[in-house]
C-alpha cells in the first residue's frame, strides 16, 4: 500500500505555526515580487478570492484589515517541508517527495487491519511535531492514493485520513462520485473525448477495457485506468536524479532598460544556477540567457530575445559561467526597451565525474582547474553557512530594479539566528 500525505494550505500553515494570531483568519501568500496570490487559506477561498488573483486588486481588503497577505518566505517553507519529510521517514517504510507539500509514503509490511490506525498516527505525529496539518490518503496505487487523499480532505467524516481497499464498496462509492477531471493525469481535453465514449466518472474509467483505452488514447491513460482498479503501474521518478537543466529567472521589481542593472541581475542568476549545478555534481556545456519585455504593455515596444553561449569545455566554475552569460547578454541586449524579466538556464548538463578532458589539457591547466574547484567549494560553503549572497563575484548594488519586492515577508523563523521567534514571558 502507498500513502499520499498532503499538507493543508502549506505556505499559510507554515506562517501560522509562528504567528498563531493568523489561525482561522483569511490569509494569502504572494508570489515572488508580491505579484499575485499563490497560496490561500480556506478562509480566504471562502471569501471568493481565487488562486492567482493580483495583489493590487485586493489591496483595499488588506487596508480594511479583512484579509492578510504575506510575501513568500521560501526559506521557511523549505525547512518546514524537510521537517515534515523527516517525521514521515521516522514513521514509515520510506518517503518519496512529490512536491514541496506532497509526499508519497510507503506502507510496506503493514497488515491491513493496522493500516488505518497507523495512518491516523502519522496524521497526528506530523501535526504535533511540526505544527503543519496534513491529510493522509492510503491505497494500493498512487492514483487511488491521490483520490483517497482528496476524499480525506473534502469529506469531513474521514477526519483527514482515508484508507481505500481496491475492491471495497467504499472505493466503488467514491469512484462513482469522482469526476474524470479530478483524477491525477486526466486533463480537460481527455475528459471531453472520454465523455463521447460514455465514460464520465472515475468508476467508468476503471471499468473500461484497458486495451481499448490504450488503442483509442494512450498507454498513460491505460495505466491510469489500471491504477484505478488497484493495479500499480506508475513508479515514481527518483527524486534524487540530477536535473537535466537548471533555470534561474525572476521578474525585475520594476521595468528596466538599464544595461548595468540587467547585467547585475543576469550575473546573480548565473551564480545562483552555478551553485545549484555544483550541488548536484553536474557540469554545463552551455549557458542560455533570455530577456523579456512586458507583453501586457502593448504601448511599449516588444523585444524578447535569447542567446546561447557555449562553454569551451563542460564546467561548473562560476567564473566561466558568468563570463558566458555576460557574453550572451551583450549579444542580445538592445537599449530603449523596458525589460520585465530575465533569466539564465544551464543546459546540456553532464556528470562532473565523467567529464571529457580537452586534447589541449596540460598539467598547468589541470592544476588551475583544481584551484578553481577549491575556490568554488569555499564559495559555496561560505554562502551556505552565512547565508546566500555573502560572497559573490562582483557586488550587486542594493536597491536595483531587479531586487525582489518582498515587503511583507515574515522572519525566517527556523533558519536564521537573528530571526528566531520570541516567546514572551508574563
Amino acid at each position: 500500500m502507498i500513502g499520499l500525505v498532503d499538507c493543508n494550505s502549506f505556505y499559510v500553515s507554515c506562517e501560522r505555526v509562528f504567528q498563531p494570531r493568523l489561525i482561522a483568519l483569511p490569509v494569502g501568500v504572494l508570489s515572488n515580487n508580491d505579484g499575485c496570490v499563490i497560496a490561500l487559506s480556506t478562509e480566504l477561498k471562502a471569501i471568493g478570492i481565487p488562486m492567482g488573483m493580483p495583489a493590487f486588486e485586493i489591496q483595499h481588503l488588506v487596508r480594511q484589515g479583512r484579509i492578510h497577505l504575506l510575501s513568500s518566505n521560501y526559506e521557511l517553507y523549505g525547512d518546514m517541508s524537510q521537517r515534515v519529510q523527516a517525521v514521515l521517514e521516522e514513521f514509515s517504510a520510506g518517503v518519496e517527495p512529490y512536491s514541496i507539500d506532497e509526499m508519497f509514503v510507503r506502507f510496506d509490511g503493514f497488515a491491513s487491519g493496522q493500516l488505518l490506525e497507523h495512518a491516523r498516527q502519522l496524521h497526528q505525529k506530523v501535526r504535533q511535531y511540526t505544527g503543519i496539518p496534513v491529510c493522509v490518503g492510503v491505497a494500493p496505487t498512487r492514483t487511488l492514493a491521490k483520490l483517497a487523499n482528496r476524499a480525506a480532505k473534502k469529506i469531513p467524516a474521514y477526519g483527514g485520513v482515508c484508507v481505500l481497499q481496491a475492491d471495497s464498496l467504499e472505493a466503488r462509492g467514491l469512484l462513482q462520485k469522482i469526476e474524470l477531471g479530478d483524477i491525477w493525469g486526466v486533463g480537460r481535453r481527455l475528459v471531453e473525448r472520454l465523455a463521447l465514449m460514455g465514460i464520465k466518472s472515475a468508476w467508468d474509467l476503471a471499468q473500461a477495457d484497458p486495451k481499448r483505452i490504450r488503442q483509442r488514447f494512450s498507454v498513460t491513460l491505460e495505466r491510469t485506468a489500471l491504477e484505478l482498479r488497484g493495479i500499480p503501474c506508475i513508479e515514481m521518478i527518483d527524486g534524487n536524479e540530477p536535473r537535466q537543466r537548471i533555470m534561474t529567472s525572476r521578474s525585475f521589481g520594476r521595468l528596466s532598460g538599464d544595461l548595468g542593472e540587467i547585467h547585475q541581475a543576469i550575473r546573480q542568476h548565473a551564480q545562483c544556477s552555478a551553485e545549484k549545478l555544483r550541488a548536484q555534481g553536474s557540469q554545463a556545456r552551455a549557458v542560455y540567457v533570455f530577456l523579456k519585455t512586458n507583453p501586457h504593455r502593448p504601448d511599449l515596444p516588444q523585444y524578447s530575445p535569447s542567446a546561447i553561449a557555449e562553454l569551451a569545455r563542460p564546467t561548473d566554475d562560476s567564473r566561466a559561467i558568468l563570463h558566458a552569460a555576460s557574453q550572451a547578454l551583450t549579444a542580445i541586449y538592445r537599449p530603449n526597451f523596458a525589460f520585465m524579466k530575465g533569466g539564465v538556464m544551464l543546459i546540456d548538463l553532464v556528470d562532473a565525474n565523467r567529464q571529457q578532458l580537452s586534447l589541449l589539457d596540460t598539467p598547468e591547466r589541470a592544476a588551475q582547474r583544481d584551484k578553481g574547484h577549491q575556490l568554488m567549494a569555499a564559495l559555496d560553503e561560505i554562502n551556505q553557512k552565512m547565508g546566500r549572497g555573502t560572497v559573490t563575484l562582483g557586488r550587486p548594488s542594493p536597491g536595483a530594479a531587479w531586487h525582489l519586492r518582498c515587503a511583507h515577508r515574515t522572519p525566517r523563523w527556523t533558519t536564521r539566528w537573528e530571526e528566531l521567534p520570541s516567546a514572551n514571558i508574563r
Partner: protein
Amino acid sequence: MPHDLIIPAHPAPPSQPLPHPLALTRVGLSGFPSPAQDYEGRTLDLNERLVKHPSATFFMSVTGDSMVRLGIHEGDLLLVDRSIDPRPGHILVALVDGEITVKRYELLGNRPHLCSGNPRYAPIPLDNLDCQVWGVVRSVIHEYPV
C-alpha cells in the same frame, strides 16, 4: 642533570583508559593500524546532546523576565521540543490569546493549569479554549557577555 640519571620507564606506563580522541595518523610504515583509528575525528557535538528530535525541535528567544526564578532570563535561547507530551513540572511554550508565551505546567486541585512565574498573572486552566500547548522547553541556553 647528567643524562644517565634519566631512567627509562619500565615497564611501560599503563595505557590510558580511553584512546586519545585526536590521533589522526597511522603509526610508522609497518601497516599495523593504530588502535586509535576507530576513534578518529570524534568531537563533542552540542546538537547531539541537546537536540533529541531534530524535526520537532525549534529555537526561540526570550523576552520578559517573569521566569528568572526558574532560571530563564531575557535574551536566553530556548530549545523547544514538540515531540514531548507535556507533564506537570514541564516548562512549556504555550499559545495564550494568539500569543507565544512561556508557562509552567502544574496541577492545581488535580486540574492541569499553565502558571506564570509572575504572581500578577493568574494560572490559566488548560481546558480553556484560548490556550494551547505549543511545545515543551527541553533546555535553556544562557550566554554571558564575555
